[in-house]
C-alpha cells in the first residue's frame, strides 16, 4: 500500500494519545465525506469532531492517506469531497456518462466570470466586444456554476456575477487561486479593466510594413478564411 504518512517503528497500530485522537477524528471526517456525493462543508466536519481537534491536521492526514489511492480526497472551497482518481476515468466512464455541453460563447462568458469576478454584464460585454445573447447567462445560472453575487456600488447598481462551489467542484479546483494561469494573467494586467502602465505593443511606423513573415490579406484569403463565400457559387 502506498501509504504516504511515515510511520516510526513501533508506533504502528499502537498510536496513543493525540495521535490516536487524530486517527479517530479522521475516521469521523472520512465517514462524513465518503457518505456524501456533494462536498461536505468543513464547518459541519468541525462540529462533528471531538472538541479541541485541529481539523486541518485531520484533513491533512486523510488527504495524504488517499493521495495515491483509487479515490482521492479533494478540497472544494470550504468543503471536502472524495472523487475518483482522474487516471482511472477510462475504467469508470460508461455510455451514460454525459456532461453539460456549453456553447463557445457560454464557455467564454464562464471563463470571464471566473477570472474577473465579481464582474457585471457590461464588463463581460466590454471584454468580449459583443452583446451577450439571450440564453448565455441564463444557461450558466441554471447550470449552477454561476451566481449573482451582489450589486456593484456604482451608478445603476449593476448586479455582479461570480462562480459557485459547484463550479470549483466540477472543474476540480480547490479555490479560485487554482484557476489555470490566473497569476500570470494578473501579473500581465489582463484581468483589469484598464490598459496596464507597462503594456507594450509596437508603435505605428514599424508596423506599417508587413513583417517578413507576413502576407497582405487578399480577396483570396478572405474566401479561404470562410469570411466570404467563393464568387459565383450558388446560394
Amino acid at each position, binding site marked *: 500500500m502506498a501509504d504516504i504518512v511515515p510511520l516510526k517503528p513501533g508506533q504502528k497500530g499502537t498510536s496513543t494519545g493525540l495521535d490516536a485522537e487524530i486517527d479517530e477524528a479522521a475516521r469521523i471526517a472520512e465517514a462524513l465525506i465518503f*457518505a456524501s456525493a456533494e462536498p461536505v462543508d468543513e464547518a459541519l466536519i468541525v462540529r462533528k469532531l471531538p472538541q479541541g481537534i485541529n481539523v486541518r491536521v485531520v484533513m491533512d492526514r486523510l488527504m495524504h492517506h488517499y493521495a495515491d489511492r483509487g479515490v482521492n480526497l479533494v478540497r472544494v472551497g470550504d468543503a471536502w469531497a472524495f472523487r475518483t482518481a482522474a487516471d482511472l476515468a477510462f475504467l469508470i466512464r460508461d455510455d451514460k456518462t454525459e*456532461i453539460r455541453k456549453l456553447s463557445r460563447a457560454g464557455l467564454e462568458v464562464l471563463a470571464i466570470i471566473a477570472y474577473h469576478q465579481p464582474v457585471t454584464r457590461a464588463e463581460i460585454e466590454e471584454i468580449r466586444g459583443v452583446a451577450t445573447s439571450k440564453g448565455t447567462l441564463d444557461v450558466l445560472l441554471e447550470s449552477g456554476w454561476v451566481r449573482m453575487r451582489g450589486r456593484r456600488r456604482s451608478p445603476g447598481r449593476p448586479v455582479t456575477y461570480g462562480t459557485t462551489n459547484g463550479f470549483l467542484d466540477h472543474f476540480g479546483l480547490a479555490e479560485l487561486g487554482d484557476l489555470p*494561469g490566473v497569476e500570470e494573467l494578473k501579473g*500581465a494586467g489582463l484581468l483589469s479593466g484598464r490598459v496596464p502602465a507597462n503594456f507594450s505593443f*509596437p508603435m505605428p511606423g514599424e508596423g506599417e510594413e508587413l513583417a517578413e513573415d507576413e502576407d497582405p490579406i487578399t480577396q483570396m484569403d478572405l474566401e479561404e478564411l470562410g469570411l*466570404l*463565400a467563393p464568387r*459565383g457559387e450558388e446560394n
Partner: protein
Amino acid sequence: MLPKPVESASQTTVSPAEALPWDAPERRPEEALHIDVDGFEGPLDLLLHLARHQRVDLARISILALAEQYLDFIDQARKVRLELAADYLVMAAWLAFLKSRLLLPKPAKDDGPSGEELAAQLAFRLKRLEAMREAAARLVNRNRLGRDVFARGAPEEIEAERGSKFQASLYDLLIAYASQRQRLAVTTVTIASRAVWSLADARAILTRMVGTIEEWTALDQFLVRYLSRPEERASAMASAFAASLELVREGHLDIRQAEPFAPIYLRRGPKAGAQPNG
C-alpha cells in the same frame, strides 16, 4: 472610447431577398456572395481572427496594419453590396478614426486620447480577449466531475448542514418571480404585434409588379394578394402609396387619382424598363 456594440451584435446579415416575405426574385450572381459572420462573435472577434492571420505573436501585431485589413474587409463587403450588422460598421468607423489619429499630426488644443493611446487600448482588448479564450480552453480541458472524476455513486444521507429542511436556489426564486410577474403583465396588457410594411418592402414589391402592367390599374389590385389580412391593410396601403410616389418621381411609374378618396391608379412609367435602383 471604443464603440459599444448594439444588441443585435451577433446577428448576421440576410440577403435582401430573404428579408422579403414573398417569393425570392432571381438572384444576381454577386448577390450569392454573402459574408459569413455567423462564426464570429462580433467585430472584436473578427479583429482577433485577422490578427492571428498576420501569423505573428499578438504582442508584435501592428495595430495600423490590422485596422487597414479590417477596413479592407468592410470595403470588399460593401463592394458586393452586402449589409453588415451595425456594430461591424461602428467598429470600422472607429478604426478609420484611429487610423487618422495615428497617421496625421495631432491638432493643437485637442485633449482627446492620442492615436497611440487608442491603439494601445485596442491591442489590450485583443490580448485580453485572447487570454480569456485560452483560459476557457484550459478550463474545459481540466479533469471534470462526471467525465474524468466521479463522486460517490451511492451517497448516504448525512445530517444537513443547515437547520432548514427546505432547499431552493436564488435562481429558482428569481425565475419564479420573473415568470410570474411577466405572465400577469402579459395577461393584463395585451399588445398584439402588428405586421408592418416598411417603405422598402412596399417599394420592392411595387417595382416587381409595375413592370408587367401596361394599363391603368387600381393600387388595390396590385396589392390584392397582400390585403387579405385586415390587420396588414392599413400599413400596406400607406407604405405602397408612399413608395409609389417615389417611383413616380424616378419615372418608373405613372399615377392618377380622379378626386380625393377615389381609387388610385398606376401604370408603367416612361423609364420602367430601366433597372430601378432598389
